[in-house]
């Protein structure tokens, strides 16, 4: 049972500011995912919460208690490392019981707790083995088991699935979500993989260069990105961006003159932007459709058939590439001329600073 609160938490490495005043509160039993490109500070932030990295400024509160100076083992948080960091010379059982041994727990009690965790994680047959005799997935489970036996208030995961192959990653993802439901503990999970973030999180924290760009539920982030960075980072393939200038605007729609010369009419905010304002139009690949007549025209560059869907890369006259996601029945061929229209009027507008202005969405 843990709720965490970060108040203007910052981290300096010499003259380099790695984390810039992060405010965040994490509710009890919440599954929060920190996501961002490499070097964005997500791991640093996690390590600061764990106590492995000193907090330069601001406050960390765990269950309302100021925890900046509390040593890592006294914070009641357990961490699963990217490399798993299993102790190679100890057996699985010794690995899992190490924290309890350090806490001075009697042998019989340790065995009972390790046995219980091994049962949950299906590690009973390998309890006597050394880590190097285990498969990747089993090592992963031991690392989680080592966290579970401590019965922590919260779990911290540092890119735990990045060393697994694709199939195992999907399986462990589901197991982790199940584990979260079973343990009813607060979990903070760091990843650079937005699919992991989208599938597992109650709430996602998008970090970029030490700044929290946006905090929200996965769908909220997908449909209502707060700025260009989040819009571009969440979603694969990426959202298409078109810089343009407002030609006309009223309470219902905005007419944009795109940099490539095309004119684009999109639903707009109630308070229309002034004529001549520089805006960026953002359209997700699935919000385009092939139309007989549309505002954008170009030639098909590449077609990727993925089975459930087909990705079409369209080269506009300006040379820009637009990615369109269509269904599997698309008969589009490379070299064909196509024209694109918005589907159901879905589009986003961002002002020149990158902040979201308006997300056009049908009710």
């Amino acid at each position, binding site marked *: 049972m843990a709720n965490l609160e970060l108040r203007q938490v910052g981290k300096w490495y010499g003259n380099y500011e790695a984390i810039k005043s992060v405010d965040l509160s994490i509710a009890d039993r919440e599954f929060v995912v920190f996501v961002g490109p490499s070097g964005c500070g997500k791991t640093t932030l996690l390590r600061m919460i*764990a*106590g*492995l990295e000193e907090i330069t400024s601001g406050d960390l509160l765990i269950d309302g208690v100021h925890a900046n100076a509390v*040593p*890592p*083992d*006294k914070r009641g*948080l*357990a*961490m699963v*490392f*990217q*490399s798993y*960091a*299993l*102790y*190679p*010379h100890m057996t699985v059982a010794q690995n899992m019981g*190490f*924290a309890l041994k*350090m*806490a001075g727990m009697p042998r019989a009690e340790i065995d009972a707790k390790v046995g219980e965790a091994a049962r949950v994680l299906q590690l009973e047959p390998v309890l006597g083995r050394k880590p190097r005799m285990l498969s990747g997935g089993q090592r992963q489970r031991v690392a989680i088991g*080592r966290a579970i036996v*401590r019965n922590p208030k919260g779990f911290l995961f540092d890119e735990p699935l990045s060393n697994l192959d694709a199939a195992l990653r999907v399986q462990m993802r589901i197991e982790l979500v199940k584990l979260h439901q079973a343990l009813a503990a607060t979990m903070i999970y760091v990843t650079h993989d937005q699919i992991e973030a989208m599938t597992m999180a109650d709430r996602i924290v998008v970090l970029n260069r030490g700044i929290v760009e946006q905090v929200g539920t996965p769908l909220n982030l997908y449909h209502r990105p707060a700025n260009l960075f989040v819009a571009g980072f969440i979603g694969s393939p990426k959202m298409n961006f078109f810089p343009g200038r407002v030609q006309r605007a009223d309470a219902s729609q905005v007419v944009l003159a795109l940099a490539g010369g095309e004119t684009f009419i999109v639903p707009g905010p109630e308070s229309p932007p002034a004529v001549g304002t520089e805006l960026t139009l953002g359209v997700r690949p699935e919000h385009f459709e092939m139309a007989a007549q549309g505002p954008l025209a170009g030639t098909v560059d590449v077609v990727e058939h993925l089975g459930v869907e087909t990705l079409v890369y369209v080269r506009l006259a300006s040379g820009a590439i637009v990615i369109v996601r269509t269904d599997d029945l698309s008969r589009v061929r490379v070299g064909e001329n196509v024209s694109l229209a918005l589907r159901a009027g879905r589009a986003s507008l961002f002002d020149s600073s990158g902040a979201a202005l308006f997300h056009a969405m049908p009710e």
Partner: protein
Amino acid sequence: MAYAMKGAETAGRAMAQDGLARGRRRSSWLLLSPAVGMLALWAFVPLAMTLYYSFQRYNLLYPERRGFVGLLNYQLMVTDPSFWTAIVNTLLLVLGVLATTLVLGTVFALLLNQNFRGRGVARLMVIAPFFVLPPVAALIWKNLLFDPLNGLIGWLCTLMGLQPVAWFTVHPMLSLVIIVAWEWTPFATLILLTALQSLDSEQLEAARMDGAKPMSRIIYIVLPHLARPMAITVMMESIFLLSIFAEILTTTAGGPGDATTTLTYLIYIRALLDFDVGGGSAAGVLAIILANIVAFFLMRAVARNIEE
């Protein structure tokens, strides 16, 4: 018919390949032979001559009284109390130095692995004794440090009002162990330091999260990680320590009495001071046998350690 042809063809090809392989084997032996020949000359000729002389009565003081004496040289050697003293001395020296260098090497490696100002200089200083030639190192210790009248240690003792100690007279073996350990601690430090640097820092952090205090982290995480490099250090050092000679020659010359006469030094005394080529050779052969017994157990222990 077709099958038969095919069979014949395969057989023919196999024979051709066989011939080719034999030819290749022959040419590879041809190419290897200079290296193998050199090795044979270097290793086997001295060994064979030592074996030969060990069965001969051959003293350079009476070179005319020569001849085959069977195992007499060995019998004389084994019944000579100084031979057993030499073996005990060798073990004392090797084990004493091994224990000292492992403990000090571990401590220095742990310290030098920390981040502090001037770490590069400190590392260089700790490694430095390794570059000093053995006789020079022994003379530095003998004349500049251990000397009761002019030595630094004696001077420090008098400063504190203590009686200076004549190290080589009172504690001859201990003095030797100190000198040799001083020379070999850098070696242990180097190996253990590089091993420490290969320790995954996440393991230490995981131990921190698990509530292990610094001392527990050393005992449960760092030392087990160092077990293998330690075994290798023991093996490497044993090879060199069994043949320690220059340090003894320049400091105690095996004395007082035979207090610091190791097996290596005993062979030197027999062969080059007593001019007893036969006796020296017999002692040499015994030393080879003993070294191989030690090497056998050592290799087995190390191999088991490495397999794990």
